């Protein structure tokens, strides 16, 4: 049973690397959705014996949200915004994948140092940390607002897996709360991106920085 879970962990890590090099926005959305589905299935496989009915229902909710609802919302936002179809990275793809690999090495080291209870599944802590770092990478090095939403989703996946590493069932409540937050965030950002692109004809955050209220030239005399 655990071998299967470990296979999933490896898959999650590969998805992280893939996210770091994917240029197409729609593939990115699909990859994030796939990662969410895989992570959602993980608790069913990580425990020993048959899973509880509650866990099954919960996994179903997560898979539906992350696999169907979020990608649809994001795809819609992408279409409506009429922006370029690539992620417009601020750094090159080789640099992204190097950073992602570095994050994986750092999280392996971090995973061995963190004072955590022994996890049942091998590599689960480093994988979760690496996923969180990948999420941050997406947020900080991609210029579109929509990739920031994707980054938050990836971080959420990472947190979810990290929670699984510690306890198999307790974090479900916590996860539920986080999921709700992310759901609202995706919703709001989807709407906001749509409106921003309608007002400004683009959703490039670098351009949005024109909106900031504090410039030395105007105020600092």
């Amino acid at each position, binding site marked *: 049973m655990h071998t299967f879970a470990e296979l999933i962990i490896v898959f999650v890590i590969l998805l992280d690397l893939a996210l770091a090099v994917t240029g197409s926005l729609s593939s990115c959305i699909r990859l994030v959705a796939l990662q969410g589905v895989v992570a959602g299935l993980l608790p069913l496989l990580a425990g020993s014996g048959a899973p509880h009915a509650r866990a099954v229902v919960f996994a179903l909710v997560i898979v539906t949200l992350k696999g169907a609802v979020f990608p649809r919302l994001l795809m819609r936002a992408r279409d409506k915004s009429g922006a370029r179809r690539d992620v417009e990275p*601020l750094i090159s793809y080789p640099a992204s994948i190097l950073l992602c690999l570095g994050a994986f090495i750092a999280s392996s080291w*971090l995973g061995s*140092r*963190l004072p955590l209870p022994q996890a049942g599944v091998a590599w689960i802590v480093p994988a979760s940390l690496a996923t969180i770092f990948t999420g*941050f990478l997406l*947020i*900080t*090095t*991609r*210029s579109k607002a929509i990739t*920031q939403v994707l980054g938050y989703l990836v971080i959420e996946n990472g947190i979810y897996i990290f929670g699984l590493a510690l306890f198999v069932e307790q974090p479900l409540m916590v996860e539920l709360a986080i999921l709700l937050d992310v759901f609202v965030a995706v919703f709001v950002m989807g709407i906001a991106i749509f409106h921003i692109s309608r007002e400004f004809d683009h959703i490039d*955050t*670098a351009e*949005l*920085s*024109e*909106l*900031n209220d*504090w410039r*030395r030239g105007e105020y*600092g005399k």
Partner: protein
Amino acid sequence: MLLVLLSIVILISSASLALCLGRNASRAQDAGAYGAAAASAAGLIPALQVLLTGTAETISFPWPVPLGSFTFTLDPLSAFFLVPLYILTGLSAVYGVDYLKNYAGRKPLGLAWAAFNILTAAMVLVFTAGNAVLFMLGWELMAAASFLLVLFEHEKPQVRRAAFIYLTAGGAGALMLLAAFSLLGAGSAALDFSSFPSPSRGIASAVFLLALCGFGLKAGFIPLHVWLPEAHPAAPSQVSAVMSGIMIKTGIYGLIRVLGFIKPWEEWWGWTLLIIGAVSCLLGALFALAQHELKRVLAYSSIENIGIILLALGLGMAGAACGADALAGLAFGGALLHVLNHALFKGLLFMGAGSVLHGAGTAELEALGGLAKRMPRTAPLFLAGSAAACALPPLNGFAGEFLVYLGAFRSLNSAGSTAIAGVVSGLALASAGALAAAAFTRAGGAAFLGEPRTERAAKAREAGPLMLFSMRALVLLCLLCGLAAPLLLAPLGRAVASGFGLSFSAAAAGAASVPLLYVSAGGLLLLALIALAAARRSAFLGVKMPAAGPTWDCGYAAPSARMQYGASSFSQPLTDFFQPILRKLGQYPVISEYFPGRASFSSEAQAVFFNAVYLPAAVRIRNLAFRFSWLQHGRLQLYIMYIVVTLLGLLLWKL
């Protein structure tokens, strides 16, 4: 105790009611004013009861906030501050109904009343809190509510500037208080005042300095006063009365409370307070003499009076550190009594200034004049307030200062540094009193006597009935506190015992009771003489009507109102003498010919400390901050990276 909580509930509910009724100005006024008056009536009962019996009460509810608890303590010290608070806020609310009528429709009166009542509730909270978190909650609420009230006439740029300075000062003070309470409560489970462990000597000194600066920024003694002469005149007059009368006393209250936690006192603490107090009362009175606006004169006079209170505290601490209990008790008693007295007469004076502003539309001294004929009811009330502020018997200002003088004289017998402290405080008090007398003679004379200098002053009208009622009530209380000072000694002793220590009150009661009897006997004698003179006058005049003639016009052929002594000309000899300190701006012509031509005169009082110290410091800090403006570039990705890097750093640091 329950009634005090009830008063808080009344205040908060009437505040929300006033806010809800904001559309209808007169209803909002009613909601706010009735609420404040009812809360005052409810709160005065337990406060007076505690002062008369001397038993402290405590109520505690759990509060889920970390380190916090809803602990309310009503001991004689709290009660002694609560009494003037309730009296002044209740009367100010009554006053405000008439005063704010002019603003109906132009200003959000519902919001103003809500802020006023929240301010009162916050001050009650500050005076009764038995937990540092609760205290800080009240403290911040007080700052926020009074900030809103200072901004009442926000369309004027100088008001916005005053409010900004006020907000900055309040924030800085709160920061220091947080540090002080953290130091005090380090190691205890909750920040209850009763559970503070006794600090080590070094910590105690640090707490003292932090509390002095933090509470000083609220109390407004020099050099932490810069916000006070800006913010107090900017607020509506009944709010100025509350702010100057009682809100700045929260700083004194907090300082006394914190001093109770860090016993035994060091002698240099006393000296620090003494010197700051002496400087504040001297410079406060001096700056008051140079101001051109009535409310600014009063604001500087508040600085002077806070200085007197602080000086008395310092004298007492210096004496207590040397074991001179009677001296310390007299000084502490004088400080507390002056808190009460100043609240009463400064409230009265600000209301009087408000009546002038309300009646004549301006409070610029050079634009007033002759108001005694146009506002015949306000004028004697303002005169009485001025006499109290100058510490003239039989009014109440004298009693508190008299106790401090007694302490100062008593210290002359003791050896060494205490005697020097006594000499310093006696000299400072006497000189400040003389300067204050000059300042109030000038302000009252320029506003009320002579002929009106402008059209507006000529058309001034009398204050409304509710305004007059509040001022009359305060005059009555001032007179009562002045004449009945010996009766105040017992409650005062209880407050001193709960605030400073039992030994002081016992020693002071013995030393003060007989001299205070002489004071009130003298006051009664003076009143009797005045009554006798009045009776003789009316008996002499009988039914005869005295004729009214023109004032002697110094032999000028065509006198005009502009030839009168103005406020500037009255104080010019003194202000010229102190020019190195006052640094007045302006110029006046030197007359060298027999037939001088046209000439112009101008004079402007400078905010010396603000311009010489705070403004350069602020500019320097801002320039330093601009060096880091590259950090604030507006790129969201990099902002998030700052957060990630910080979080990672913290994680690795703790690993």
